[in-house]
């Protein structure tokens, strides 16, 4: 069912959301092409998190279109579970992992497979699943911590575990909210490398405040302000844009 003709992986057109009269998103429009990595910046309250909520089905837009995969799916009509099943993964701003579960179990729960009640009740371990988990543990460098409970990990390790969970989900599109928050410089650079690695076969949207990190990513940047797009382009173009400097970067 083709709802909209577009080549975009993600297509937002005129999306508005308001909470008690406050316009969190105001006629927001942008497109993300398949395979692209996009950095989204903007001051607090610019609507970055609300935008993610709309894409992942947590918040329904009052107005506007949100289409996924060349216009095949109208995301504004689906809920979180359905959207996750379609292949959109989300990393929260505050690392959100299952603290009481081991690192391994966190990844197991995230693996892309049948998530119905019946399937999990009669689930059996398989070597294919174990291989996939081992592979991800290598990528996020948590192999030695596999049996530890996630609650005992450091902040940076939790961020990586959550990224690992996103990988396990095998999404087509990843939304990553402030992955470098609270990380050391070295960890920040490693995280940038990790995201570039992921971007090889997945589309990625990164919301980030850390300009050094965004520069390191070296991708197209969209700056949001008061719920709509203020500027879009390369990091050099955007960071020299007068209005961006005024509202966000400061003189």
């Amino acid at each position: 069912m083709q709802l909209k003709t577009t080549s975009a992986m993600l297509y937002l057109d005129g999306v508005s959301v308001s909470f008690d009269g406050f316009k969190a998103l105001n006629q927001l429009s942008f497109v993300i092409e398949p395979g692209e990595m996009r950095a989204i910046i903007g001051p607090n309250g610019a609507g970055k998190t609300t935008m993610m909520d709309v894409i992942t089905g947590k918040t329904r837009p009052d107005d506007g279109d949100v289409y996924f995969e060349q216009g095949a799916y109208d995301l504004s009509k689906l809920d979180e579970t359905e959207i996750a099943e379609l292949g959109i993964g989300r990393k929260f701003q505050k690392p959100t992992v299952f603290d009481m579960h081991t690192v391994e179990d966190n990844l197991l729960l995230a693996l892309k497979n049948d998530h119905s009640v019946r399937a999990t009740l009669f689930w059996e371990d398989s070597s294919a699943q174990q291989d996939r988990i081992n592979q991800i543990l290598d990528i996020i460098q948590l192999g030695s911590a596999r049996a530890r409970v996630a609650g005992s990990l450091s902040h940076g390790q939790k961020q990586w575990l959550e990224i690992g969970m996103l990988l396990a989900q095998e999404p087509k599109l990843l939304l990553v909210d402030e992955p470098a928050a609270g990380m050391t410089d070295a960890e920040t650079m490693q995280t940038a490398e990790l995201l570039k690695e992921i971007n090889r076969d997945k589309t990625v949207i990164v919301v980030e405040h850390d300009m050094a990190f965004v520069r390191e990513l070296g991708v197209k940047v969209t700056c949001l302000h008061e719920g709509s797009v203020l500027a879009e382009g390369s990091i050099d173009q955007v960071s020299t844009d007068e209005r961006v400097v005024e509202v966000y970067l400061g003189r």
Partner: protein
Amino acid sequence: MGAFPLTRLLDRSSAVFLILLAAFAMVIPTLNLLVPASSDLHVSTYLVALFGKYICYAMLALSIDLIWGYAGILSLGHGAFFAIGGYAMGMYLMRQIGTRGVYANPILPDFMVFLNWHELPVYWYGFNYFAYAALMIFLAPGLLAFVFGWFAFRSRVTGVYLSIITQAMTFALMLGFFRNNFGFGGNNGLTDFKDILGLNVQAEKTRNVLLVASCLALTICFLICRAVVTSKFGKVLVAIRDAEARTRFLGYRVEAYKLFVFTLSACMAGVAGALYVPQVGIINPSEFAPGNSIEAVIWVAVGGRGTLTGAVLGAFVVNYAKTFFTTGWLAPYWLFVLGGLFIAVTLLLPRGIIGTYEWWRARRVEKQSIPIAAEAPHAAE
């Protein structure tokens, strides 16, 4: 089939618990039936019935632990499912009285004759058959839980709001069952039972049979709970408990998980209530009282939520204390003791008895393994 390996179902504390329960189910009837009353070892029939009651409470606690301890659903109305299971059994027992009632009506229970009813209400049909009643013991509480859960979980009612509406549910049912025209005996409830499956409910032997049956039912419920919580389903439940939104964004249909486990739990509570009624000899609307449900939650908190064995232990400890404190001169102080216990557990023992023990053991194991863990990186390099 390797789907349920025994090692998965039975960890050390589960195995210890089941062995103790089996020993209990064998020793108590032996001491009651075979040891003469004059002996110090003799267990009175009063105690047999009391222990049978505790086992039913333990089953109720287990059902609460399954949803509260693992899925984070704090039901403060689980007594309702217990009572409904009890009423289903009570209806069967009423129909067994037959012509031995005060009014000797072969079909109608005494209270209906007294109310001048001439026909058995449709929903009483079939309860003269034990098999039908046994089915209803699961179905009636299960159906109520399913419908209630369907609306509550779909609307994403969680936390304290869910707890409040479960309280409202049991309170509303209590008011309903108090009414004579509901057809469940009004405030007197159902009592004066004579036979269960042809055995006299008052007889010493029947009491022992009921105790053993209760222990058996508790064993089965416990194994079902273990199978659920040790499966991947159980891991998803804990995930929902600790980070519901995260679980949704991973593509799990959270409401379906909650609905399944809530309904399963209600069925177990119903079985507990059904076994409870013949042992205490009465079921009346006060079983729906909100206080009962809250007390059952305290049992779980005392024993340790999320441990299963803790729920059983908690039910025994608190109810034994209740029996002790409500007989004799201490009787007026029971509610103070219960309230104090709840505060003490929350402040001093937030993991409960079993939870604290398991935590202490896990820490000890961790401490022992630290030297090995410290060596590991060097070995790897």
